[in-house]
C-alpha cells in the first residue's frame, strides 16, 4: 500500500529552453503524461520542486504557470468536475523527495487520485546570475496510490550539525544597482552531503527493519561522482549499486533522472532506496518497492 510512480518524464534541453525552467518543466510534464497515456485534465495535484527559474520569479508558484501551460483544468471551477491544485516546494536537491512525501499525504487521504511532481532548473541569464553551476534540465514523476503491497515507505530525514550556510548556498543579492543570483560552496561539500545521506539511509532502513543488503538499487541525488563515491564508501556498497543522473550538473531533477536511468529494468517487487542530500545540510531517504509495470 503506498504511492507509486507510474512514469518518469525528462526534458532534453534545447537551445531555446536554456534560460527557461518553465519550458523545461512543461516539456518534462507533457512527455511524462503522453508516455503514460494520461490526459492533463486527470491531474489533481502538481507539486513543483525546481528552484532556479525564469526571471528569478518570486510569485506566483511556477507550478501554476506549468498547470496553465500543460492545460490541467485551468478554467473557472464548475459543478460536477474536478480541478487541479498547484504549488511549489523548495528543499534543494532533496526537493523531489520532499514533493513525493507531500504527494503521498494527499494520496493517502484520498484527496487526490493522480499527482505530478515536477522539477526543473535553468540559468535565468540576461545578467541575472553569475557562474550558474547547474545544467538546464527538467523532470516529472506521475504518481498514484495503490492498495497493493508496493510503493513508497515513510521518509527519514537528518540534518547535519555545523555552519549551515557554508557548505553550499545560493542567494539573490543587490549589488551595483542590480539583483544577481550567486552561488557558493565549500571544497568538502560532497563529503558533507554523503555523510548526511548515509545517516538518512541507515535511519530509513533501520526504521523499517530492513537491511541494506536487501536493497536492489540506490537512487541518489545529487549526481556528482565525488558524492556517489563517498556515499558508496560510507554505506559499504559498490558504486555501481548507486544510480545517479548521467549529467552530474543536474540539480533538482537529478533524483528523477537517476530513477529513470537505473530502475528501468528492475522487476516488480524490487527494493529501491531513494537518497537525496542538499544544502543545509539536510538529507532524506525512503524505500520504494517497484510495482508491476
Amino acid at each position, binding site marked *: 500500500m503506498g504511492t507509486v510512480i507510474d512514469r518518469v518524464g525528462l526534458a532534453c534541453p534545447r537551445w531555446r529552453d536554456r534560460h527557461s525552467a518553465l519550458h523545461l518543466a512543461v516539456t518534462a510534464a507533457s512527455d511524462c503524461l503522453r508516455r503514460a497515456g494520461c490526459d492533463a485534465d486527470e491531474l489533481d495535484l502538481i507539486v513543483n520542486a525546481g528552484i532556479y527559474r525564469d526571471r*528569478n520569479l518570486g510569485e506566483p*508558484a511556477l507550478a501554476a504557470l506549468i498547470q496553465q501551460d500543460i492545460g490541467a483544468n485551468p478554467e473557472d471551477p464548475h459543478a460536477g468536475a474536478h*480541478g*487541479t*491544485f498547484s504549488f*511549489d516546494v523548495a528543499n534543494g536537491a532533496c526537493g523531489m523527495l520532499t514533493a513525493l512525501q507531500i504527494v503521498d499525504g494527499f494520496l493517502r487521504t484520498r484527496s487526490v487520485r493522480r499527482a505530478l511532481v515536477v522539477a526543473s532548473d535553468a540559468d535565468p541569464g540576461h545578467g541575472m546570475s553569475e557562474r550558474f553551476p547547474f545544467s538546464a534540465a527538467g523532470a516529472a514523476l506521475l504518481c498514484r496510490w495503490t492498495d497493493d503491497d508496493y510503493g513508497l515507505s515513510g521518509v527519514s530525514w537528518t540534518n547535519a550539525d555545523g555552519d549551515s550556510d557554508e557548505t553550499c548556498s545560493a542567494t539573490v*543579492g543587490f549589488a551595483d544597482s542590480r539583483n544577481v543570483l550567486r552561488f557558493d560552496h565549500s571544497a568538502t561539500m560532497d563529503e558533507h552531503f554523503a555523510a548526511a545521506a548515509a545517516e538518512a539511509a541507515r535511519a530509513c532502513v533501520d526504521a523499517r527493519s530492513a537491511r541494506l543488503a536487501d536493497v536492489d538499487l540506490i537512487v541518489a541525488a545529487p549526481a556528482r561522482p565525488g558524492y556517489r563515491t563517498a556515499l558508496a564508501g560510507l554505506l559499504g556498497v559498490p558504486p555501481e549499486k548507486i544510480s545517479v543522473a548521467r549529467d552530474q550538473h543536474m540539480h533538482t531533477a537529478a533524483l528523477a533522472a537517476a530513477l529513470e536511468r537505473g530502475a528501468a529494468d528492475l522487476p516488480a517487487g524490487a527494493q529501491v532506496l531513494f537518497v537525496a542530500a542538499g544544502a543545509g545540510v*539536510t538529507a532524506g531517504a525512503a524505500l520504494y518497492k517497484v510495482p508491476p509495470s
Partner: protein
Amino acid sequence: MTRHWLVMETAGEGPPAPFVARVAGAGRHLPETRLTTDELMASTRHRTHIDLQRLTGIRERRVSVGDEDSYSLATSAALNCLATARQDPAALDVVISCSITKFRGGLTQWLEPTMSGAIARGIGAPQAMTFDVSNACAGMLTGVTILNNWIRQGIVERGLVVSGEYISQLSHNAARHIRNIMSKELACLTLADAGAALLLERAPAGSAGLALAGFTTVADYSRLCLAYPQGHDPGARMFTNSRAIQKAAIADTPLLLSEVLDTVGLSIHDIDHVITHQTSARAIRKGMARMSESFGDTPRHDAVITVDRYGNTASTTHTVALVEELEAGRIAPGDKVALLALASGLEIGVVLLTLDEELVSRYGHRH
C-alpha cells in the same frame, strides 16, 4: 461518487483518518514602525492623485526599517507561537516555511539552504524535518493543508507552519514608478511586513481542530500577478491586474465554499467567523456581499478586517487576523472559523477549523 472541484478529503473515500490536527498555537510578530498611507503616498516620485486610503481602507501598516527581515520576523513569530502554546521546540517533527520573501541579512534572498532550516535552528528545533513552500499569499494555508494530511494519517505528530514577510520593499519600489491609478504596481502599495506561525498537533479523531482544507488553482489566471527582481530596484517588483483577479475571485469562490460546506454538512450561517486574505477592506466587503447574495444568508459575524491597521502582509494575513481576534476575545471555544485564501496563481482555498478551550484560554480569555 460526486467529484469536487476542490482538492480535499472526502468522507467515504478510503479508510477514516485516525487523528485530527488541532491548532495548538497561533503566534505573530509585527514590526514596531507604523507607516501611514499619507506618509507612503507622500513618498511617490510622481504626483499620482490616488486616494489609496479611500480605495483600500488602509490607514497604516507596520514596516521593517531594515532592522528586521523575513528570517527575523518568522523566528519571532514562531517563538511567540511556541511560548503561547507552552511547547518545547525540540518536540517539533517538522517546520515548514511558507513566505514569498526569503530575505535574510538585509535584502538578500536566500534560495538555498532553505529558510525553514534556518528558522528551525534559530528556534531550537534542529532535529525537525524542514522544507519551504512557495504559493504566493496562499503559502501558509498551503503549508497547513500539507501538515494536516500528515497529522491526520499519523505520519507526524507535531509541526510548525511559519512565515516571515519583509515585503514592504515592493511598496517602496512601486512608489518610485507609479504614475496614476491605472498602474500595474498599485497593489504593491497595500503590502506590509509581519511574521506569523501556526502550531498543529495530533489529537484523537473527533477533537476540535482542522475540519477540512480544500484548495484549487485556477491557472487560466496564473499570469495576472507576477513578482520578480527587475531593473535597478532592490528586492523585487510586482505587477498585478487587481481588477481581473477580484472579478475571478468573486465569481469562483461561492461554488468552492459551498463544496466545503456541503462536505461537512454546514450552512453559511453555521460559520461564526470568516477571515479572508487581507488586500483591501473594500474588496473584502464587496466579496462578502456577493457571497451573502449567492447563499441567501450570512456568516454569524462580519468578515474580519485587519488590513486597515496592518495592510496586506502577504502569506501571513490569516494568522495575523486570527491572533488579533483571539487576543480581543472575539473567538469562543467551539466557534467555527473559515479561512479563505486568495492568491496569485490563482489560488483559492478554504480552511475550516474550530479552536478548543485550551487554546482560546492561552490568549487570556475564558468563555
